[in-house]
């Protein structure tokens, strides 16, 4: 793994982005290293796109600094674009273009491109030679977009929701390609709100909401950090939590419909007591997690906390959370 002394591929320091008086990003700082997949996670409107577009040089920070490969994305845009690959969430290719034409065209922009035919094979579009962008499915368009992001042999790849709306086979293929990029030393910055994707793919997760970092670490660290003394289980919604609480001797809450949290260490006897109570009530148990949480739990808890913040929270936060 890349040591912490080495220069990060992406460095965001105290970034703020305002649109008029609307605050999109509010003092964001994080780093992404080469040879790692960093997932920028957050709900819609969290500030992910504003942040990434600033890194790509599309917009200037209102305050704070961003550096990509040590370059200022706006002032040194020309040097930067030769070394980054961008995958937009949608569009980006003229509708009448065929995959091979688009790849050959993009290859012409770079000094040392990957062979377009090789890339077409890699993303499984070699047999789509005659279809135009307009006639391709969403998944095919996503795979071509990914190939276009890679053709210039980037050192940093910005991938916006790369597997959104894609069938499982296409998703697997894209994930393989992304993992391969990481193995070749590319810094991959993935924006997503797909938690499963981040959990499976990312080496490093940055959770943001309302333009600030809520958590930053490896998926394992984040899940460990949030692991309190609690047992979570899924069962039909609307259970009598006080009855269960009395039975097991710990507070039980319904965190979300059908998702229960028992405030107790996950001892075997506690797990046995919960399942025995369910058995008596003849209730099905959907799943039971003792200790280790899924990233989704962390994410939902953190973003929910941010939304029910104290009254001292910034005006922007309150404004956004009312939406």
């Amino acid at each position: 793994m890349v040591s912490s002394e080495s220069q990060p591929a992406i460095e965001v320091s105290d970034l703020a982005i305002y649109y008029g008086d609307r605050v999109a990003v509010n003092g964001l700082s994080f780093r992404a290293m080469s040879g790692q997949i960093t997932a920028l996670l957050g709900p819609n409107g969290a500030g992910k796109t504003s942040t990434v577009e600033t890194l790509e040089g599309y917009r200037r920070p209102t305050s704070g600094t961003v550096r990509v490969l040590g370059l200022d994305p706006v002032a040194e845009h020309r040097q930067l674009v030769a070394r980054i690959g961008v995958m937009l969430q949608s569009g980006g290719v003229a509708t009448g273009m065929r995959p091979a034409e688009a790849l050959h065209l993009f290859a012409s922009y770079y000094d040392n491109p990957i062979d377009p035919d090789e890339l077409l094979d890699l993303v499984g579009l070699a047999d789509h030679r005659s279809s135009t962008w307009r006639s391709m499915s969403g998944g095919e368009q996503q795979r071509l977009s990914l190939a276009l992001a890679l053709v210039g042999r980037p050192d940093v790849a910005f991938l916006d929701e790369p597997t959104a709306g894609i069938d499982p086979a296409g998703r697997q293929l894209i994930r393989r390609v992304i993992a391969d990029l990481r193995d070749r030393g590319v810094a991959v910055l993935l924006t997503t709100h797909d938690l499963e994707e981040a959990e499976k793919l990312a080496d490093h997760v940055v959770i943001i909401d309302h333009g600030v970092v809520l958590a930053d670490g490896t998926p394992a660290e984040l899940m460990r950090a949030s692991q309190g003394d609690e047992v979570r289980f899924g069962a039909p919604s609307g259970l009598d939590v006080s009855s269960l609480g009395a039975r097991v001797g710990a507070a039980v809450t319904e965190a979300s419909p059908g998702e229960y949290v028992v405030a107790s260490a996950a001892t075997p006897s506690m797990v046995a007591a919960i399942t025995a109570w369910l058995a008596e009530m003849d209730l099905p148990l959907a799943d039971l997690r003792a200790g280790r949480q899924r990233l989704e739990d962390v994410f939902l808890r953190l973003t929910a906390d941010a939304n029910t913040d104290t009254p001292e929270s910034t005006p922007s936060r309150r404004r956004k959370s009312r939406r």
Partner: protein
Amino acid sequence: MKALLAQTRSELMLSLRNGEQLLVNIAIPLLLLVFFSAVKVLPIPTGVDKRVDFLAPGIIALAVMSNAMVALAIGTGFERHYKVLKRLGSTPLGRGRWVLAKIGMVKVLLVLQIALIVIAAFLLGWNPGGNPWLAIPAVVLGAFAFGGIGLLMAGTLRGTVTLALANGLYLLLLLLGGMIIPFSEMPSFLGTIGKVLPSGALSQVLQSCLRSGAPGAGSAWIVLAIWAVCAPLAAVKFFRWE
């Protein structure tokens, strides 16, 4: 250079593959030329022997407008809509080469359009007069004027609005521009408006270059030059890439 050539080739290929663009760039001008040369429905200025002698310069002006304004605006407007321009912004192509590629595409299409119109006009018995070489700078000025208007629309309006407005403007500039209907047939206030429009200025200039006995076009050259400078400047100033 490699990127510029590839971009120009790609722009050209997409234009030639696009049925709507071929229709507006080539089919409509040729159809109007042949139809109104053969069918005696439209008035022609007094002193003109053959209809095609009046129509050919006007149809060349129309072809310039179709290509540099309508097709360019619609094509670029949808590229902006589908984030093609945004995506190019994060490649090493750069805006300068993108604009040069668009200019290159318009130029090649103009040569093709004008060649077809000239061939058709000769087949219809066209007898050009005046100073045909002066038509070249006129066409170039016209292309810059219309191209500026086209990119101004494409860079500031939504794709679908650009589509509608470009088509509406096309019809208006065609009817008021003296391209197929002589200014002498219009009420004088309409003729006055028509002559300060880019279409009116270009068709007057082309008439003077390509038809003997056509009125001089000194002021039309000035009007055309003003459009050719101001419209691209406005496009540069107001164009938004996303």
